[in-house]
């Protein structure tokens, strides 16, 4: 469905100063700097997949998605999506895709969603009967029948987000890009949105999701691509991402006496939550759980304990840091 080969995007930006002298100098001369936002990306996405496209801020996710949606032209590389080149056959292509942006509304603020849907129907050229059938189906699925005639500005964020999804799905796209689709929503609204995405995915719609909400990733994605500094640093199933850290556990402990700073193989104190409460990470290959519990109980007295798998946030943090360290090492060796 999507085939990306050696996709690269560089752009020039002004280097702006912040001191008064630099600002004054910038009025006359603005030095330019080349930025490589996306560097030689290659990957494929089969039809019906639910792919999470992750990375820290400034990693190149949005630029990649903008090229995949045909909004931006790449500097180099190729993309074939739905049999088309997005930026060359933009009109035909965007008629087959949808996009939901958590931070950019496609609804019209002062008028009811129903009017905005009608406008989209005309823009996409959806026939009347098909429009009515799709709209009824989506309205039922998302349970927004009672808000359709209210001005958008009077809707809650959750209701608005549901309407954003209807706006994006009215023309029955085969491929949908989601950019932070649950940002700012409460747990119930998030669950509704996730349920809707899953149900559309079951109908064969391919989703590409970018988010910083890793719960969305755990609940929705089958496969994860992590991008950092414009390059792919991980591309595998979600389970692969979790197993990447080995047999690690996150343990939250309340002890009878304070735990000092320890140098113990297989154990890392992740956080101190109080005088007698700590969070630790244990590599159970090096420090089996039963040994850890026995030693800690003997030394500090365990009053309470909670064992969990390593949260995906920690895995991602580790992945980003690993990449940053590798880059700084490469930079040091390049200067030598």
């Amino acid at each position, binding site marked *: 469905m999507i085939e990306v080969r050696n996709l690269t995007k560089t*752009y020039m930006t002004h280097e702006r100063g912040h001191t008064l002298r630099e600002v004054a100098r910038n009025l006359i001369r603005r030095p330019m700097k080349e930025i490589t936002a996306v560097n030689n990306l290659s990957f494929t996405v089969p039809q019906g997949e639910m792919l999470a496209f992750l990375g820290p801020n*400034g990693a190149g*996710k*949005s*630029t990649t*998605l*903008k090229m995949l*949606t*045909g*909004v*931006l*032209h790449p500097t180099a590389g190729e993309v074939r999506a739905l049999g088309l080149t997005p930026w060359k056959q*933009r*009109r*035909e292509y*965007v*008629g087959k*895709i949808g*996009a939901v*942006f958590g931070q*950019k509304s*496609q609804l*019209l603020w*002062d*008028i009811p969603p129903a*009017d*905005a849907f*009608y*406008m989209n*129907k*005309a*823009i*996409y*050229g959806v026939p009347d009967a098909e429009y009515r059938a799709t709209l009824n189906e989506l309205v039922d699925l998302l349970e927004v029948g009672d808000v359709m005639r209210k*001005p958008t500005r009077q809707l809650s964020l959750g209701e608005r987000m549901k309407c954003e999804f209807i706006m994006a799905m009215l023309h029955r796209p085969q491929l949908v890009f989601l*950019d932070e689709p649950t940002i700012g929503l409460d747990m119930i609204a998030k669950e509704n949105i996730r349920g809707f995405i899953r149900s559309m995915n079951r109908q064969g719609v391919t989703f590409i999701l*970018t988010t910083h909400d890793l719960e969305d990733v755990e609940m929705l994605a089958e496969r994860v691509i992590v991008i950092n500094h414009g390059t792919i640093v991980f591309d595998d199933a979600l389970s692969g991402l979790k197993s990447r850290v080995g047999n690690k556990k996150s343990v939250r402990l309340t002890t009878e006496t304070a735990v000092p700073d320890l140098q113990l193989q297989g154990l890392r104190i992740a956080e101190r939550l109080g005088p007698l409460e700590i969070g630790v990470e244990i590599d159970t290959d090096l420090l089996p759980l039963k040994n850890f519990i026995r030693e800690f109980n003997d030394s500090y007295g365990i009053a309470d304990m909670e064992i969990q798998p390593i949260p995906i946030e920690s895995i991602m943090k580790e992945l980003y840091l690993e990449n940053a360290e590798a880059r700084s090492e490469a930079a040091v060796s390049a200067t030598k």
Partner: protein
Amino acid sequence: MRGIIHCLGAVLRTKLAEQMAYRSHFILSVLLLVAGDLVVPFVTLLIYSSGASFPGWSMHEALLIQGVFALAKGIAFPFFFGMVGTTLHHVREGTFDLLLLRPRPVMLMAMLTGFDPDDFGRLFSGAVIFGFALSGMSQPALGAWLQFGLLFIAAIAILCAVSLFLSGMLFRWVGSSRVFDIFDAVTSFGMYPGTIFAKSLQNLLTYVLPVGLIAFVPATALLGRSGLEALWTLVPVSLFLLLGAVYWNRMLKGYTSAGG
């Protein structure tokens, strides 16, 4: 084509609904536009009533130019000029992406998104000035009306081209809201009889910045002061419009969106 007309109808309906959400703003906005458009004709009235004049032009003839100018703006502004504001806002915010995600020509989407029903108020003020000017003159012949019709379409095409140039500039000079001042400064020459300016300025306003073609040339045709040779101006106007469209599309390619 039917699809585009249907699309146009739906967007116009939606934009009108948006305006009706704040009726007082809409009414006030229309009234202010009408009042603003009547300022220059009012000054013209004062000039003539004080005994002065634009040499070679009666008051009604001078007002006819200003009426044509307001009428041309009354049609061009709601449909085309809104794209300047749309580009200014959406490029700066990075939301121009949303227009690129629609399966229609981007230029059409920019025009439709910028459609502003308030500006139809200018049609009203234009019609009032135009009607008043005509009431003080002998009725033009049918041929003059036909020639005027063609030249009036050319005037709207010029305003459309100017909108394309200004809007196109904003892809590169992001956030330059002064484009509106540039427009006002340049087009204000078009509200007066071209012959009151020096010959060099007349040529500049006809052949380089075709501001004189917005109102002066069509009004002259209606007054029967120009021959059929005035229709030759349709050629540079078509080229100007084509150049505007090429320029706009070229500048669109430089659109870099905003950070995500």
